[in-house]
């Protein structure tokens, strides 16, 4: 039982992280190969506040999210103006730099040895509840003017700007909102495992997340969530080693690219998620 609850908790944390990638990559079309570093920022900030200052969970989570957004803002200013293919490279560099900083500030972070003794505040219901909340927020974002502007900018920046969309502004908003969710996943993680080390958050994790989102369908939040649950749970159930995970993901990438480039769900969304929009349309 405990084992299944643990899988459920880890999967919920993955869902939060995947939701953040859906916003950044699926909606805004930005590829961040350093996104896992923002999970590290959330995890370390909350972890340090809890262990060193005995801060309660909720404020620690809030500070963790704020730190993640601050880091995203600083990374985003020089990065988001770049061409899309460069964004992936530069976020990769920033991500690895953040990991290097965590490694080299051992007096605060514990360095490569990791940060230990974080209070285990993250219970399974907390993790599941926050995962549901993250998905609802992402859905609301998608069907707001901001979500439409993200998709328009992903499709055609010149046309979007001609319709009055602030291209740089909406990219920054998507990056900040997404990174807030990534950092939130980090705070949950730290207070679940009670232990974090920099090596957990390197670029391969960012790449895994992007693969999961593409597997589900980069234009479908439903697909992203389903893929997160499937691919987050499967390796745990199979008790696959890290090497096997990489092998599984590589095969998935090949299958998707060759047989279903738009992902399992394409652009499909569960009707439930659009119900409010529909109701307004009927009224209109």
């Amino acid at each position, binding site marked *: 039982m405990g084992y299944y609850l643990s899988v459920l908790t880890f999967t919920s944390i993955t869902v939060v992280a995947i939701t953040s990638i859906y916003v950044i990559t699926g909606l805004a079309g930005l590829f961040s190969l350093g996104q896992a570093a923002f999970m590290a920022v959330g995890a370390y900030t909350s972890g340090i506040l809890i262990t060193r200052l005995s801060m309660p969970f909720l404020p620690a989570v809030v500070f963790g999210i704020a730190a993640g957004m601050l880091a995203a803002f600083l990374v985003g200013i020089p990065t988001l103006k770049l061409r899309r293919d460069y964004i992936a490279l530069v976020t990769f560099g920033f991500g690895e730099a953040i990991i290097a900083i965590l490694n080299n500030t051992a007096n605060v972070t514990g360095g490569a040895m990791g940060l230990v003794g974080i209070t285990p505040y993250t219970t399974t219901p907390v993790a599941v509840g926050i995962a549901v909340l993250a998905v609802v927020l992402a859905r609301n974002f998608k069907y*707001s003017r901001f*979500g439409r502007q993200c998709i*328009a900018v992903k499709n055609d920046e*010149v046309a979007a*700007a*001609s*319709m009055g*969309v602030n291209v740089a502004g909406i990219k920054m908003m998507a990056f900040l909102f997404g990174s807030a969710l990534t950092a939130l996943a980090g705070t949950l993680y730290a207070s679940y495992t009670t232990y974090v080390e920099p090596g957990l958050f390197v670029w391969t994790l960012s790449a895994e997340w992007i693969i999961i989102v593409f597997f589900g369908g980069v234009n479908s939040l439903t697909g992203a969530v389903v893929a997160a649950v499937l691919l987050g749970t499967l390796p745990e159930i199979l008790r696959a080693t890290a090497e096997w995970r990489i092998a599984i993901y590589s095969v998935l990438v090949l299958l998707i690219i060759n047989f279903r480039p738009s992902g399992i769900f394409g652009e499909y969304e569960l009707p439930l998620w659009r119900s409010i929009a529909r109701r*307004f*349309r009927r009224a209109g």
Partner: protein
Amino acid sequence: MQGERNAASTPPVGDALAPGAGVGPGSGPSVGLGPSVGLGPGPGSGPEGVVLRAEGLDKHFGGVYAVRNLTMQVEQGHTVSLIGPNGAGKTTVFNLLSGVNPPDAGRIVLAGEEISGMPQHQIARAGIGRTFQNIRLFPGLDVAENVMLSLDARNRYHWYDGLLRLPAFHREDRASRDQLQEYLAAVALEKYAHSKPAELSYGYQRRVELARALAARPRVLLLDEPAAGLNPGEVEEFIELLERLKGDYNLTILIIEHRMQVVMRMSSHVYVMNFGALIAEGTPEQIQNDPAVVSAYIGDAHA
């Protein structure tokens, strides 16, 4: 943020288009600054009716002067045509006016406000609306969402209103959806609200693009070859649609068009470009008989 131009609740034939909206003390300085092109003697050509004015625009790409010392203006409520052979620089003029490219020299004044040098999205919000020569709809959004996007630029609810679906979100989103129905009806595409642009015929895609530009409630609407690719019957239909919309929404239009049918029927004033520069301007009748225009078109496929 977008000034007090439009309240979400007002009907679409908006305040911005009210008679005299283009008149402002700011439009004063432009009077007399354009000696290089004589103002046409046509009706309503007084400077007080000028809503858009470009002066001395230059743009070059590498060694090619796409636009050279171009001065032109558009009066409130008029339809003005910009014609010329392929490669004359017409689309580049639109790109300068709408801020896609900044001009190398010259200035652009919209309703008394200098817009040259402003970021593209602010120019759009200031009142320049446009369509593209090659239709540029958003393939990831359905027809309704494509049009919604233009309405969105005017909405003012904040990110937290959207994320948490607070009352401001519901209020403005609902108002936008009501207006959306009207714009879809204006181009007779209500049935296709939930289709993706790629599922529509070329002519329908043109109409979606028109609805999207209309929904932004521009002071001046720039149409880049809107009738290209339509068959003669569709062109007739298109002219009728455009004339109707012009009346309903009190539009001011600058149109690039090769079809003389459209130019002659619709415009009160015509500018003719070749090799980046203006070579003639006047009423459609004057232009038709202008020797410089005739010679520019000789050998051109669109003559």
